């Protein structure tokens, strides 16, 4: 049943995302074509416009992905479509898991398309050198290489994004337990859930810092912190966010299993 649900959920989200993916890639391609035409002011202006549009599409992909997942969650579980969803012979946890797996898959694909858009629009030896020159000092300062720095950064962003998504789902579940102003309460509870996850993450790092002087330096000094401490904190952050993600998933399924109140 999970596979069948996933098929429909993914189809529903991708149906809209593919439009943004296509527009982004189309303008990335135009950017590349017009930038390749040399000594033409008009082509340069068109290339700048296309470049701007491609960049705005990158943000649209991320925002749309997030919003569509939340809207789909709300419509599927608390609006008219909920009358069909909750009467399907499927457990509540399977229904919820379908939404989470859809979220993870679509976010991965969006990140991939964003990477591809940037590659199509801007890949050139000079740009790669420029990127290296920006990241290399950071990598050198921390005795690391560019790839590791980029991967760590992307991984932290991904788990953070996943936690934001879950916080939104928590907000929608809790908000729809109220008798009125459900959308307002959903936003409020979602925001509170997100703040709680951040406070929890900082608290865990602070507790660890009580036993580790190096980590404590993050809280008490502004000076350059040792690379090993930074690595420890990045690993800790990824682990804590991953743990928070699974804890929230567990809590949301528990809340969901308690029953819904569909208008």
């Amino acid at each position, binding site marked *: *049943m999970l596979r*069948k649900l996933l098929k*429909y959920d993914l189809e*529903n989200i991708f*149906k809209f995302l593919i439009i943004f993916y296509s527009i982004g890639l189309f303008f990335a391609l135009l950017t590349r074509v017009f930038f390749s035409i040399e000594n033409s002011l008009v082509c340069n202006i068109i290339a700048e416009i296309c470049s701007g549009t491609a960049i705005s599409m990158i943000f649209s992909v991320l925002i749309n992905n997030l919003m569509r997942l939340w809207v789909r969650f709300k419509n599927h579980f608390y609006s*008219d*479509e*909920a*009358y*069909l969803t*909750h*009467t*399907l*012979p*499927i*457990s509540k946890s399977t229904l919820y898991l379908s939404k989470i797996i859809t979220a993870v898959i679509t976010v991965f694909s969006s990140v991939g398309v964003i990477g591809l858009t940037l590659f199509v629009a801007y890949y050139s030896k000079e740009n790669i050198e420029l990127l290296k020159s920006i990241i290399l000092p950071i990598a050198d300062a921390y005795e690391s290489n560019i790839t590791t720095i980029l991967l760590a950064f992307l991984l932290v962003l991904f788990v953070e994004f996943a936690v934001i998504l879950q916080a939104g789902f928590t907000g929608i579940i809790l908000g729809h337990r109220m*008798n009125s102003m459900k959308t307002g309460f959903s936003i409020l509870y979602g925001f509170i859930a997100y703040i709680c996850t951040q406070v929890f993450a900082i608290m865990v790092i602070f507790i660890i810092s009580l036993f580790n002087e190096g980590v404590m330096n993050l809280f008490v000094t502004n000076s350059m912190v040792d690379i090993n401490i930074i690595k420890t904190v990045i690993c800790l952050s990824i682990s804590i966010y991953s743990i928070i993600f699974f804890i929230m998933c567990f809590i949301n399924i528990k809340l969901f299993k*308690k*029953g*819904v*109140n*569909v208008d």
Partner: protein
Amino acid sequence: MNLLECKELEKSYGNKKVLDKINLTIPRGKIVGLLGKNGTGKSTLIKIINDLLTASDGKVLVNGKEIGIESKKVISYLPERTCLDKTMTVDKVIKYYEEFYENFDAEKARKLLADLQLDTTQKLSKMSKGMQEKVQLVLVMSRSAELYILDEPLGGVDPATRDYILDTILSNFNEGASVIISTHLISDIERILDEVIFIDGGKIVLTADCDELRNRENGSIDEIFRRMFKC
């Protein structure tokens, strides 16, 4: 074992009690009318049975088991609003039902849709509300369920189609299955009912066999309802 049992069922919104200690039993092979004025708790009761609302207290048992996956396999529910994904075509919705409900008969659905001259290649969003409701009714009645729960099945349908819908209900539910129809269009459905349940202020005020009630009160169910709930 009774098909459906509600025991001391209660639902409150804050201090407002919408259902108050509902005790109800639905046997097999009956068509039951759940009748009441607007806002008396009919839809709330139906939604609790279908796991769309959480009861404040009490129990709902289907075939002796609490509401869950097993109860959803045997209940075919027609909500009062369109619950289908309107971006889908009718063909796709049929496929959806086929994938999720083991007891769904796609051939039967296509035959009923053809009878109603509904184009299965059309998107639901391009159909009128009445047409969407007909599609939904066909999907619900094409399941070989044990209990059909129809919430206002005639609400958005023109009078000429109402008879066809009632005949569809009569000729498409299984032997041994039961139907609960919630409506306030009593005169339209009276002819097909075996039993009636009158609900008012969140309480069941009357449960009776239709023929017995007509003989006892000397009038149609519609007249008895009007007399009982006169404003």
